[in-house]
């Protein structure tokens, strides 16, 4: 072994192999681990740099807080989870094996109290006999009083590994959409061949690879292709693919899920390998629309269960080769290899040719002759136990031999990465010859599998399979392959004889991430949790960030062993997305804060901002809530003033947000008769009518006015929040229920800016606005409508309708005139001391007037409850008519909307209070209804309410209790008409 010569100012990296690796050893990168500065090189991961610097012990295990090291060299890593960066950018539970090293990276270990080495929670390891499988379910059962005070705080303190920064994520994330003929998942040898075949044939190809260096195992092995190193061939292949316009090469991109109909989810990590994002998206979540997909995801190595097989220094044998060949790092100075297959031999071979001492090659098979690449060769035996408190020092074999080793490379066989093939519930099938699960016959639509992922692990065979499969796919897609020959490669020895578990004293780990041992699996089997799915939930095998990538098959094999069954008899769990963790930030994309969903601004928004408005969300809109004037000390001051000024003179409110639907056609009137509960067919031209809409179950869900502008032209309004739903329901009625009616719909909510002008001076104000229109009560009475022009020719629509109860109009102009319209109305209105009013004053006036709104339309409200039962026409078939007439929905003694005054006028009422008859007990059996809306009425000088009361129409004058245990209030109230002011409606008709 040769140590690299230290550069000026840098410490030596004791485990660096100076002549090995696909890294740039001429340049150094500084990084900090647990406060100490170290150096690595461009091309390193955090894991390879830590190993190069002799850092074996990097983590504490989840449950027992055992010392743990780096176990793998890829996304399957169960142990080496670390925290990256600091401050708001701090990221917990990151796999060190896929974190690309950059200059200035800071990383810390996690899941320990005190230092990593002196973690006081290591005590848990001594308590292990009490913490076995299912201990949660057995321990935290009783006494019940302990749950909240003792157990929950304890579990919460123990749960999780890393720590969140508790600050907002400073980075931005994006979503993207791409289409292709063929998606190739994985850029190892099979994926590269597939992408080259398809790319040369002219198909639109996406080649996605999770690594920052494409090539897969070619970068980690010493295979030759065309008589050159495999990684050199990969580099040439990548260069050719990059030159093809029809190929999109996406590195650092994990395809994490296979969804319906050829849709795939992919996460691209754009700037995770840089010190900062520099304002660019850190990650992009891609949705890939594909005609065909070829899964070339390779395989993941697994371990063997033997006592104390979790110590730092015990690693997957393939990972040890990756560190030596790709990163120029040896994970130890005296390495032993344990294998049940030919592939493990290559670890000894590669290490020895790199100059590393291989103390032993232990093959569990008898009668094999491994190459002599170790100080001693042992066959037909296995590792029985290991020693070394903070890292491996020694191993003992089943034959009694004791061997020094600071690294043990374990080769338990390779499991094809079938994950995406089972995202649509396809079940993998077992193959005894390779001792592994391969994709089953039921694959997601359009997916094929090739190479190691398909159980074809050797190089030449994998490439040949990728070529054959791709050619068939190209033919399906109508492309012809160019017929290029495969590059020359050979098939390495890969024979395996399944070997899972060394039964001996001591705990043998199966799932390193969840601290699940072979004993836990036996116990689960004994306690009757025998199905794989139950095993997983009882022991937590295969859960958390790694989803058991290195553990599932081993756990299943031990369950089969415990049950005395074969693996196929025992079954398998299937996989769900995501393949590897996807950050919530990436799933959210730009939908954060005020961009969580789109919001809309009214045409008068800018003017309202200039005039002191406070805004409130109503449905998708921002509406002015009130307009504060200097000297007003709170919202009530502003709202009371707006109501008084409107009722005394004139006020203006932007009502653009109400839904507007333009309805035209010869059968438009008949259509309205079907969708409104009350009649519209006889509405004269030039008139507006109020209507209520029912759901088919007879419940009232929306109301509004519809104006008839001509025989064949109506303009409907809906409530703000139901604008979309009403339009959808009208389209359903038009297309599905009465398809031959001549009627056409278009939403014009955004097309018109509409203002309510209300108050005794509304007519006087509007007379100065409209051109040549007689607004007298005779010429333009209550509920009249017309098309007109304003301010000398601007097109407009005028409706004489009133929500406030005052003499009132709504005037609409095309939206582009909305801003100038509000400014002009306010200018003209100066002589009347006009006031703008917001949604609060609107609400006060509608409660004073007894109009119902969202508080009353609860989804359980009948027309009868609103006092509008008589409006439901029985002479025509309308949506909701039949079921609205069910006996329970038209009972006379049901809830009715009535008004309430406090007996003591100085007390404010509260919505949500329930009504009780005096002397009745305070329980639901005696509930008489509830208060829905309350307001302080400037006109009456006290608080008023609306509410639903049983048999309310017959209880005027009765005194009840408004009982409000939530707020601790109990108020005497008098039942009154819901029309608190002007019950005859003289003002609006005046």
């Amino acid at each position, binding site marked *: 072994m040769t140590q690299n010569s230290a550069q000026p100012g840098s410490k030596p990296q004791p485990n660096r192999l100076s002549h090995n690796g696909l890294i740039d050893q001429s340049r150094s990168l500084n990084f900090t681990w647990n406060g100490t500065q170290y150096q690595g090189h461009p091309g390193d991961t955090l894991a390879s740099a830590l190993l190069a610097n002799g850092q074996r012990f990097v983590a504490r295990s989840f449950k027992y807080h055992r010392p743990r090291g780096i176990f793998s060299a890829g996304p399957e890593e169960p142990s080496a989870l670390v925290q990256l960066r600091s401050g708001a950018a701090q990221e917990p539970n990151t796999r060190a094996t896929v974190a690309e090293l950059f200059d200035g990276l800071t990383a810390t270990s996690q899941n320990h109290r005190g230092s990593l080495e002196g973690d006081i929670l290591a005590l848990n390891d001594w308590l292990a006999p009490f913490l076995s499988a299912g201990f949660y379910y057995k321990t935290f059962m009783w006494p019940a009083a302990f749950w909240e005070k003792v157990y929950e705080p304890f579990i919460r303190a123990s749960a999780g590994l890393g720590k969140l920064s508790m600050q907002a994520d400073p980075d931005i994330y994006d979503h993207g959409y791409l289409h292709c003929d063929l998606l190739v998942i994985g850029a190892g040898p099979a994926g590269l061949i597939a992408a080259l075949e398809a790319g040369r044939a002219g198909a639109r190809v996406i080649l996605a690879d999770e690594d920052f260096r494409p090539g897969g195992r070619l970068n980690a092995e010493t295979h030759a292709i065309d008589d050159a190193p495999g990684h050199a061939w990969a580099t040439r292949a990548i260069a050719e693919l990059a030159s093809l316009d029809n190929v999109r090469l996406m590195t650092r991109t994990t395809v994490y899920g296979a969804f*319906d*109909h050829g849709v795939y989810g992919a996460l691209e990590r754009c700037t995770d390998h840089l010190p900062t994002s520099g304002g660019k998206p850190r990650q992009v979540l891609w949705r890939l629309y594909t005609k065909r997909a070829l899964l070339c995801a390779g395989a993941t190595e697994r371990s063997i269960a033997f006592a104390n097989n979790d110590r730092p220094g015990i690693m997957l044998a393939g990972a040890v080769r990756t560190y030596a060949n790709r990163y120029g790092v040896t994970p130890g100075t005296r390495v032993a290899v344990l294998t049940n297959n030919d592939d493990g031999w290559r670890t000894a071979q590669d290490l020895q040719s790199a100059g590393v001492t291989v103390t032993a090659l232990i093959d569990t098979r008898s009668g094999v002759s491994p190459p002599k690449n170790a100080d001693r060769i042992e066959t037909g035996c296995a590792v029985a136990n290991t020693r070394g408190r903070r890292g491996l020092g020694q191993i003992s074999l089943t034959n009694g031999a004791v061997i020094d080793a600071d690294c043990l490379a374990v080769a338990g066989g390779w499991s094809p990465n079938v994950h995406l093939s089972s995202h649509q519930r396809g079940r993998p099938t077992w193959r005894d010859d390779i001792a592994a699960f391969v994709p089953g016959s039921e694959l997601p639509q359009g997916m094929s599998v090739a190479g190691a992922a398909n159980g074809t692990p050797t190089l030449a065979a994998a490439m040949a399979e990728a070529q054959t499969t791709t050619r068939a796919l190209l033919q399906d897609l109508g492309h012809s392959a160019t017929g290029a020959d495969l590059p020359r490669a050979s098939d390495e020895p890969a024979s395996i004889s399944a070997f899972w578990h060394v039964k001996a004293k001591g705990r043998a780990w199966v799932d390193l991430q969840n601290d699940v041992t072979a004993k836990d699996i036996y116990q689960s089997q004994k306690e009757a949790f025998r199905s794989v799915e139950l095993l997983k939930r009882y022991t937590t095998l295969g859960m958390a960030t790694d989803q058991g990538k290195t553990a599932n098959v081993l756990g299943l094999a031990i369950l089969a062993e415990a049950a005395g069954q074969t693996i196929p008899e025992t079954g398998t769990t299937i996989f769900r997305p995501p393949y590897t963790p996807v950050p919530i930030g990436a799933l959210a994309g730009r939908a954060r804060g005020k961009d969580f969903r789109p919001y809309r601004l009214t045409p008068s928004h800018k003017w309202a901002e200039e005039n002191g408005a406070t805004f409130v969300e109503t449905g998708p809109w921002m509406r002015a809530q009130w307009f504060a004037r200097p000297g007003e000390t709170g919202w009530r001051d502003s709202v009371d003033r707006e109501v008084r000024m409107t009722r005394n003179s004139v006020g203006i409110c932007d009502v653009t947000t109400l839904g507007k639907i333009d309805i035209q056609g010869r059968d438009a009137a008949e259509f309205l008769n079907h969708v409104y509960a009350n009649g519209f067919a006889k509405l004269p031209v030039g008139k507006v009518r109020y209507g209520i809409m029912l759901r088919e179950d007879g419940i009232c869900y929306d109301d509004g006015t519809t104006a008839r502008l001509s025989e064949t032209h109506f303009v409907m309004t809906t409530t703000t929040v139901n604008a*979309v739903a009403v339009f959808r329901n009208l*389209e359903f009625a038009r297309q599905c*229920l009465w*398809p031959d009616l001549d009627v056409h719909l278009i939403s014009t909510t955004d097309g018109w800016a509409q203002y309510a002008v209300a108050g005794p001076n509304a007519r006087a104000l509007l007379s100065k606005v409209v051109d040549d229109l007689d607004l007298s009560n005779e010429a333009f009475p209550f509920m009249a409508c017309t098309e007109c022009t304003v301010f000398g020719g601007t097109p407009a629509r005028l409706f004489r309708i009133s929500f406030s109860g005052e003499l009132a109009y709504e005037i609409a102009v095309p939206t582009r005139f909305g801003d100038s319209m509000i400014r002009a109305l306010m200018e003209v209105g100066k002589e009347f001391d006009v006031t703008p009013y917001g949604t609060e004053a609107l609400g006060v006036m509608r409660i004073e007037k007894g109009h119902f709104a969202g508080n009353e339309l609860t989804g359980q409200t009948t027309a009868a409850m609103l006092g509008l039962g008589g409006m439901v026409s029985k002479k025509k*078939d309308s949506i909701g008519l*039949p079921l609205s007439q069910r006996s329970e929905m038209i009972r006379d003694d049901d809830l009715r909307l009535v008004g309430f005054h406090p007996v003591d006028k100085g007390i404010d009422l509260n919505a949500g209070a329930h009504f009780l008859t005096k002397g009745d007990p305070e329980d639901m059996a005696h509930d008489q209804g509830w208060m829905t809306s309350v307001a302080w009425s400037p006109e009456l000088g006290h608080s008023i309410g609306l509410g639903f009361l049983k048999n309310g129409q017959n209880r005027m004058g009765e005194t009840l209790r408004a009982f409000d245990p939530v707020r601790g209030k109990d108020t005497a109230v008098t039942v009154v008409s819901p029309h608190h002011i002007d019950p005859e409606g003289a003002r609006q008709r005046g």
Partner: protein
Amino acid sequence: MIIPHPLLGPRDAAEFVYLGDASLIARPDGLAPDAIDQFHSYTYLRDNPAGVHRELWYHEQGDRSWLVVTRNTLTHEILSAELARDVARAEGRSR
């Protein structure tokens, strides 16, 4: 999912709003003497098959067509997509 819109070709299901069983097209006569019984069945009683299902989808983020989509609820395979208006007419609905 991808829905093969009869006019617009393959469209992402995210553009659509789902309603439910296509039997909602067969609305009974609201003025019939036994209308309450008929509407009770129409409104509340539905089959919930594990397998092939005819269902209503609305292309709200698109051309506002209501579609009848025949879909296998177990595999999400889409067997056909028709304009609901054509289906309604074929079932004898008119005015």
